[in-house]
């Protein structure tokens, strides 16, 4: 058989809390440093120790970043999932398994490499054998696939930082893994890795850390948060980087508060925004559920606030360590009564950084809650990044009146009066003594005074609608890739970016048709999204949820003549999207419309 080079998926089955995460990251880093396009997916349980964990490494010279629809090489260390993992493999797959797991290897249609991983590890350090066994399988793979030992050891050194003993121990474990392969096996599979010349200077970055850095370059002044997977690493990233980037003469230009719950975190964000500072929180769907009341207050009393939602699988506690795009509607229409909110939706780590700083400008410009919408897949997995672009614009602090002269120059100032005709009023800050009001969540007139008058309420709600409508074309425009023939268009968003190329290629191969794509990057929808729908015969709205939440928004907002051509393809099982699953569903819809 022909050699299969840099085009396969490795699935590593372990239990969490055994140290396998370090080994998997070393494997990923080694492949990355060899210049091979590679992505890693951590499928972890909501648990500290002992439950099944899988790590999927996808190598793809075509740059595909999705986990792939099948496993080519299976590493087996976990007795708990052993039979299930084994049963799922196609004939001809490679299985590298730990003979010390005391489990039977009952398939004869796979290529089997039995390795006494724990015994080998025990020769190095009996106490740490279970942990070191993980690096043994990295060594085994390095030998079988042809990975560079020097690069591997550099990756080990990077993983363990300044811990010299750990570096040496793990390096030796990887060498013993290699040695066992060369002494006991003749390679009988077709999988190989080959180094590639990739653009120098790339590095791995998780979406959450990129959001954290973006927030700091956006001038975050107050972070209030309550720990929740998968968002905690945004707050932890901010906490780690702030002292290095934002201390001034030994003092903090920021405050970080770990709140007692998400309600309090949201309240603190509003307090900071009310006082004229840039406040933010980071949470996930359950946290957003708890914050709904404050979201409505922020919208109605027009206080800038920033919320990052790193989506996990709902409803309820759901699958807390799995990924989904199920919170979109909740963000867009959050809180009771008529509301509409701005949502920024990054699809790459570079955009996580960019939207991280930009979101404060949007919130202060429009004096309203603004959501950053990420998900577990984008937020907690490591993605290849070529660099972070410094903010291209100065901070926009919005319509804040700071002096008496400024205030006097505004004709007929009122906190909620639409002086400029764009729906955005001016505001003064507490402590300034400039035309103070008592902010309230109750009905209020243009001067901020309590009112229940029907025309006053109606005019206020109408202005709020105009204000948010006015943001559409000022928010990040969609990324459109258009083919010459506009038969089929796909509208998608967020982390689906990492799977779309592969879906495109599968569709083209199967149907002979090229598809155009439009990645939505903000709500309310930019006018270019509607233009895209207008230009295409059939438009698939592709999402990682059950109900087609973006599809619902488009149906509600778009003119009747566009509705028949829009088709929803929405699917969610908690896994990062696998290209073929979604491509098959798209093809089924295309078949229905006979395209």
């Amino acid at each position, binding site marked *: 058989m022909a050699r299969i080079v840099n085009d396969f998926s490795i699935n590593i089955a372990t239990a969490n809390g055994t140290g396998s995460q370090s080994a998997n990251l070393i494997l990923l880093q080694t492949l990355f440093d060899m210049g091979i396009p590679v992505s890693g997916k951590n499928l972890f349980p909501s648990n500290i120790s002992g439950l099944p964990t899988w790590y999927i490494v996808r190598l793809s010279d075509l740059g595909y970043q999705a986990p792939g629809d099948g496993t080519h090489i299976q590493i087996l260390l976990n007795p708990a999932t052993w039979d299930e993992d084994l049963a799922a493999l196609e004939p001809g797959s490679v299985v590298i398994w730990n003979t010390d797991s005391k489990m039977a290897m009952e398939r004869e249609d796979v290529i089997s490499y039995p390795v006494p991983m724990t015994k080998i590890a025990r020769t190095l350090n009996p106490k740490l054998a279970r942990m070191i066994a993980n690096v043994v399988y990295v060594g085994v793979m390095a030998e079988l696939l042809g990975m560079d030992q020097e690069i591997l050891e550099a990756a080990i050194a*990077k993983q363990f930082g300044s811990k010299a003993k750990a570096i040496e121990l793990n390096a030796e474990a990887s060498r013993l893994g290699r040695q066992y392969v060369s002494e006991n096996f003749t390679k009988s599979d077709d999988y190989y890795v080959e180094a590639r010349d990739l653009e120098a*200077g790339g*590095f*791995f*970055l998780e979406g959450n850390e990129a959001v954290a*850095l973006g927030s700091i*370059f956006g*001038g975050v*002044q*107050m972070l*209030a948060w309550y720990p929740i997977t998968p968002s905690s690493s945004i707050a932890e990233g901010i906490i780690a*980087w702030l002292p290095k*980037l*934002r201390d*001034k*003469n*030994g*003092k*903090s*230009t*920021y*405050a970080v*508060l770990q*709140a*007692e*719950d998400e*309600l*309090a*975190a949201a*309240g*603190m964000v*509003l*307090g*900071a*925004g*009310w*006082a*004229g*500072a840039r*406040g933010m929180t980071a949470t996930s769907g359950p946290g957003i559920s708890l914050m709904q*009341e*404050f979201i409505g*207050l922020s919208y109605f009393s027009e206080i800038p606030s920033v919320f990052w939602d790193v989506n996990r699988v709902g409803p309820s506690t759901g699958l807390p360590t799995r990924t989904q795009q199920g919170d979109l509607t909740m963000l867009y229409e959050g809180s009771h009564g008529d509301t509409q909110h701005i949502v920024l939706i990054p699809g790459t780590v570079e955009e996580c950084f960019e939207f991280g700083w930009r979101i404060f400008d949007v919130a202060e410009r429009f004096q309203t809650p603004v959501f950053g919408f990420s998900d577990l897949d984008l937020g907690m997995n490591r993605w290849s990044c070529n660099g*972070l672009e*410094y*903010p291209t614009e100065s*901070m926009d602090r919005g319509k804040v009146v700071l002096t008496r002269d400024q205030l006097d120059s505004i004709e007929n100032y009122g906190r909620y009066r639409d002086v400029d005709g764009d729906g955005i009023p001016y505001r*003064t*800050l*507490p*402590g*300034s*003594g400039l035309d*103070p*009001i*008592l*902010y*309230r*969540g*109750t009905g209020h007139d243009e001067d901020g005074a309590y009112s229940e008058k029907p025309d006053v309420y109606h005019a206020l709600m109408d202005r709020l609608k105009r204000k948010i409508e006015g943001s559409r074309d000022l928010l990040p425009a969609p990324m459109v890739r258009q083919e010459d023939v506009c038969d089929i268009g796909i509208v998608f968003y967020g982390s689906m970016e990492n799977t779309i190329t592969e879906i495109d290629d599968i569709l083209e191969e199967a149907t002979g048709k090229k598809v155009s794509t439009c990645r939505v990057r903000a709500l309310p929808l930019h006018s270019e999204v509607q233009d895209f729908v207008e230009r295409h015969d059939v438009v698939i709205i592709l999402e990682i949820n059950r109900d087609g939440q973006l599809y619902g928004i488009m149906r509600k907002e778009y003119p009747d003549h566009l509705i028949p051509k829009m088709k929803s393809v929405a699917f969610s099982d908690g896994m990062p999207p696998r290209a073929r699953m979604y491509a098959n569903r798209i093809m089924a819809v295309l078949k229905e419309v006979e395209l």
Partner: protein
Amino acid sequence: MTEKPVRAVKLNVINEPKDSYTGGKSSLCPGCGHDQISSVIVNAAWENGIKPHRIAKMSGIGCSSKTPAYYLGQSHGFNTVHGRMPSVTTGAHVVNKDLTYLGVSGDGDSASIGIGQLVHAIRRNINMVYIVENNGVYGLTKGQYSATADKGSKKKKGKTNETQAIDLCAMAVNLGCSFVARSFSGSKKQLTAIIKAALSHKGFALIDVISPCVTFNNNDESLRSYGYVKDNSEELHSVDYIPHFSPLEQVEIPAGAFKDITLHDGSTVRLETISEDHDPSDAVAALTALHEADVAKKHVMGLLYFDATRPALHEDLNLTDTPLCELGEEDLRPSPEALESVVASLRG
């Protein structure tokens, strides 16, 4: 013809008349204890010589939380959501530590829906005054028991309140609150002194003010209760009839003494001013006084506990001297070189 002498307007230490500290007209029931507290707030802020625009008026939801509209009209304020005033104040405080934060809340706001936020605000020792206008009843929703309602209180409909009341002062002392006091809306002199002291205190100051509800007083046996009036007036057909009462007369009780105060509904409340021997730095003495008053079915008033040594939240955060909200882009956005060094370290 003799000219009438022009009466000089009295000014405070920063040359402001008291008018600079007043607010809009109250929409509470006539005679409400909360209005008395509002006027004490005006007096205390004026007497302390705080610049009126440097005060931030904070509140939650409820009758009490409406009152910031009725005092300090030159101050910005925030009537937030039910029970969540502490978190909003916390967020505002850390970004602008130089304002004086004056929170007003009720017993529903503080002892039920917002008790968690109150507890954590005390725990963080935010530099603020937190006044609970405590009447033991939900006024705006028409008379349900609150968590501070005394055990044994009776309502016309439903059962006698058999649940234990939460004593916010005892809770605060136990939490290590740095300033804990109890007073009465009708004790203007004492309440003014306590609020003035609280405004000067650095840290969280809880003032539990007994403030009788003129409308829903939870005692239908009273001849002047809401229920009695409703059932005994032939002209009365709607439940939103609010009888008019005059504010309670002023009472000042010397230290160590007590006095029975007759409320609007004819019931009495026994108030005792804590003895001059009480050592406010002694938490156990404060708890003992509260417990003994509870056993004797009376309320002990005065400064119960005080600790000036606890660091306030803003001190613990090591903030810049300039309030965060006044920092500009040069302090808030790191340089391009800083980003380069971040990227270099990510490359490893």
